[in-house]
């Protein structure tokens, strides 16, 4: 068991994100109410996804430079956990939106149809589908080296597509989702100081948890590769 310092940090920060996130005071906003606390969970999923995708593209570039299959295993594992966190971010966003944007008891809120046209939602869906295609592409190539090379190149393309689909296009179009005129949750003027105290540790905690799961996947895959090679001989 390798319980290193960063795994302990992840556990401590996540415990703090839950306790502090649910109990510490938050600003009172009419439309959001207590749901503002979702910032510590829903938004963190997307931040962790971005960081894990960044690690994944770095590993893909390393693979293309060195040709070492270990980097390919790392790239696919980080991309897999990142996509999973993105799906969780999408699911939690759907729950959050259904109580803040689409409340049927309040006619001032938008209709379901306009939520379906949300540029941020569509952009995030495109980004996740592009990463979904990454896994389909991988599983369609049987040759190991070819699969690693083609999917490493595709991963760079997928990462490049992430920026227009989740950062640029949603900023150009009107949206109910916060953060159209800046960096949501990063802008020092629009995030309350009390929330920042929990939000930043929460981002680090969730990212470390994702990295922990990814390292388990990597170690498992490397073991499987070794087993496969010894069986071949």
């Amino acid at each position, binding site marked *: 068991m390798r*319980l290193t310092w960063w795994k302990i940090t992840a556990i401590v920060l996540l415990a703090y994100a839950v306790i502090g996130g*649910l109990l510490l005071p938050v600003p009172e906003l009419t439309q959001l109410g207590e749901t503002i606390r979702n910032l510590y969970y829903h938004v963190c999923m997307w931040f962790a996804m971005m960081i894990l995708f960044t690690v994944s593209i770095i590993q893909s570039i390393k693979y293309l430079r060195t040709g070492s299959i270990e980097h390919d295993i790392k790239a696919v594992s980080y991309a897999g956990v990142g996509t999973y966190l993105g799906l969780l971010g999408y699911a939690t966003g759907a729950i959050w939106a259904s109580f803040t944007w689409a409340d049927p008891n309040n006619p001032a809120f938008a209709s379901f149809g306009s939520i379906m046209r949300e540029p941020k939602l569509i952009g995030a869906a495109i980004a996740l589908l592009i990463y979904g295609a990454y896994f389909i592409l991988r599983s369609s190539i049987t040759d190991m080296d070819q699969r690693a090379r083609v999917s490493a190149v595709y991963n760079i393309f997928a990462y490049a597509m992430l920026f227009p689909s989740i950062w640029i296009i949603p900023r150009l179009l009107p949206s109910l989702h916060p953060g159209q005129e800046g960096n949501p949750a990063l802008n020092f003027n629009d995030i309350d100081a009390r929330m920042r105290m929990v939000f930043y540790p929460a981002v680090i905690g969730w990212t470390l948890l994702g990295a922990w799961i990814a390292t388990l996947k990597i170690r498992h895959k490397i073991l499987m590769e070794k087993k496969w090679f010894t069986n071949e001989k």
Partner: protein
Amino acid sequence: MKNKLIAFIVSLGIFAANAQAETTNDSMASLMRSNGKIYVVVAVVLTILFGLIAYLIQLDRKISKLEKEA
């Protein structure tokens, strides 16, 4: 096994603290501006979180064991 035990003890402790808070301290309810008992939610979420982390630790140990054998 040890980790499971630790997670269990931690969650028990949280529940015990929660039970006390409910009987002696009513200000927690006003703190949340809702119908109170938020500590129940905290205990539940923490139990799930620590349960998942215990599972991860277990997986980690199993993989470490396999790595030593390989």
